[in-house]
């Protein structure tokens, strides 16, 4: 098993796209934030618009070691969750079909369960290294920025941060399983990307629309009741959806903004704060989705003939 994981990791090392992602998360994203902080400092700090310590606070929220690391997990990663899962799924499963490599892999290692497990572990390692690159890049660039006055220390809620980062990595197993499944089912990599990125949101959108369509026509008598019913139903339903449960890192940003007073005008459903019961619920829900995707994948992978 270890040698098989080694084989997949060896292959990933030679693939440029993963280095591009590592560079994006570890270098480009923190660098852009530092440039933004520098721009704000040079243009606003000390001017008439700089009342109190608002600018210093804002810059600290952007450019301290903790903020940069946190923004990697809570800012960039949520945007990239499903595309990342699709890219890794296509690399580890879909491309074997595109390049007709299954016949080579499964003759060298006929235990299909072991092959699949090795690929899945490799996928988690790749996703983990991208997250880690974001954290390390944030900390390093943040440290470099301290002498320039962007931040004064490494301070931050590191305990919650590392726990959320770890849970976020675990939760990524669900979209990765979906990425594997869709890449296995669809021969075309383009279809697989669309399937992973668009399909869950599309299904959830259709379900949401079906709730709205079931509402009665609004009248002066039922307007308040209808609005309340819609809000309750949407809140109840979306708890069970796939995509809303994937993004844990965003809560770190919400919490930080609330603590600093900068987030008072942002609604909690747009930028939720750290609520651990909701976080554990999301981990559980993602786990259930992941298990369902993995079960279908395992069944199909074990039984399908390899004709490519």
């Amino acid at each position, binding site marked *: 098993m270890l040698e098989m994981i080694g084989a997949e990791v060896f292959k990933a090392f*030679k693939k440029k796209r993963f280095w591009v992602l590592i560079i994006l998360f570890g270098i480009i994203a923190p660098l852009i934030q530092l440039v933004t902080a520098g721009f704000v400092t040079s243009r606003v700090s000390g001017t008439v618009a700089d009342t109190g310590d608002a600018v210093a606070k804002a810059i600290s929220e952007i450019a301290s070691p903790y903020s940069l690391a946190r923004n990697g997990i809570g800012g960039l990663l949520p945007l990239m969750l499903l595309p990342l899962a699709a890219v890794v799924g296509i690399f580890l499963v879909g491309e074997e079909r595109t390049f007709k490599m299954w016949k*080579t892999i499964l003759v060298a290692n006929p235990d299909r369960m072991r092959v699949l497990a090795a690929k899945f572990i490799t996928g988690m390692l790749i996703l983990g290294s991208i997250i880690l690159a974001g954290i390390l890049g944030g900390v390093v660039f943040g440290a470099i920025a301290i002498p320039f006055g962007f931040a004064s220390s490494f301070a931050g809620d590191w305990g919650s941060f590392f726990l959320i980062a770890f849970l976020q990595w675990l939760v990524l197993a669900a979209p990765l399983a979906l990425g594997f499944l869709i890449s296995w089912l669809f021969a075309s990599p383009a279809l697989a990307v669309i399937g992973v990125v668009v399909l869950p949101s599309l299904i959830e959108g259709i379900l949401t629309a079906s709730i709205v369509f079931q509402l009665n026509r609004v009248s002066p008598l039922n307007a308040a009741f209808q609005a309340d019913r819609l809000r309750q139903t949407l809140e109840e339903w979306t708890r069970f959806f796939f995509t809303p449960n994937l993004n844990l890192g965003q809560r770190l940003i919400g919490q930080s903004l609330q603590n600093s007073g900068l987030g008072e005008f942002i609604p909690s459903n747009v930028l939720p704060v750290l609520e651990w019961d909701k976080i554990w619920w999301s981990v559980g829900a993602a786990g259930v989705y992941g298990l369902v995707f993995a079960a279908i994948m395992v069944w199909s992978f074990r*039984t399908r003939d390899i004709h490519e």
Partner: protein
Amino acid sequence: MSVVLEVNHLSKKYGTRAAVDDVSFTLNSGEVVGFLGPNGAGKTTTMRMIAGLISPTSGSVKLLGKSVPSDALKHMGAMIEEPSFYPYLSGRDNLRYAAKLHGGISESRIEETLLLTGMKARGADRVAKYSQGMRQRLGLARALLSSPKLLMLDEPANGLDPEGIAELREVIKSFGDQGITVFVSSHILSEVEKFAPRVLIINKGKLLRDSSTHDLRPSAGVDSLDSTYHLETTDASKALEVLRREPYIQSLELMQNGLSFRVPKAAAYRLAPLLVQGGVMFTQLKRHEQIGASSDLESLYLEVIGDQGNAGGVK
């Protein structure tokens, strides 16, 4: 000789169509066996079932006494249909990846197989830049990585030039001498008979014949005999040009140190003057073997596969 591969009543059906129908045979250690049949006869499906890639509808495959698929497959090297690789990796890195998948294969073994297949010089190039022939060679190198007891090659000569085919033939023969069982599919009888003492003929999923190449050959009269000649020369391209002009010279192939070709016995006396007049310098012109006329053997093959409706199994 110990049995390496046992195929028992193997069948694969897609709906009502039988791609492979009750095929049984065994391969012994060190045997070089040809697997003949026209395109779509069921050769690749049979090989895929042996490799554990396709599950049979009925029947079984045992490799070294163990049912397939199992870890016994680690003792098999396979090149099924055209060999495939990761185009973004070099040839050497593709072998490294395969070696890691197998487990327990050293870097020196990778270099050894690259050398054996003549790919060492191009090992660092990305596979995307390889020709079809180079891919075939690299596929063979990969199949040999694990020092297999059974080597299964599906149409290995596809895409190779005459020189490559001649080299491949010699390499396959040498595997048999090393005790490796070699199972090679092809749809060209004249190709297989050069290295395989035994052939299996399959068509429309049924195994029609399992016999030695010698037995398959019809008894031919002396007048219908062809002779295979080997011309040793350093100027093979010029010799090729001269001999190609003569319509009675067939199966011209470049060898490592010259050419081989077939000539009807009655026309053999013309060879030496022809080469001298053509200005070809050669060190030796040697009759290699005398065999039945190729047309007879090919027609027998066509007769076997054409007559399968009445055959119903191994003759």
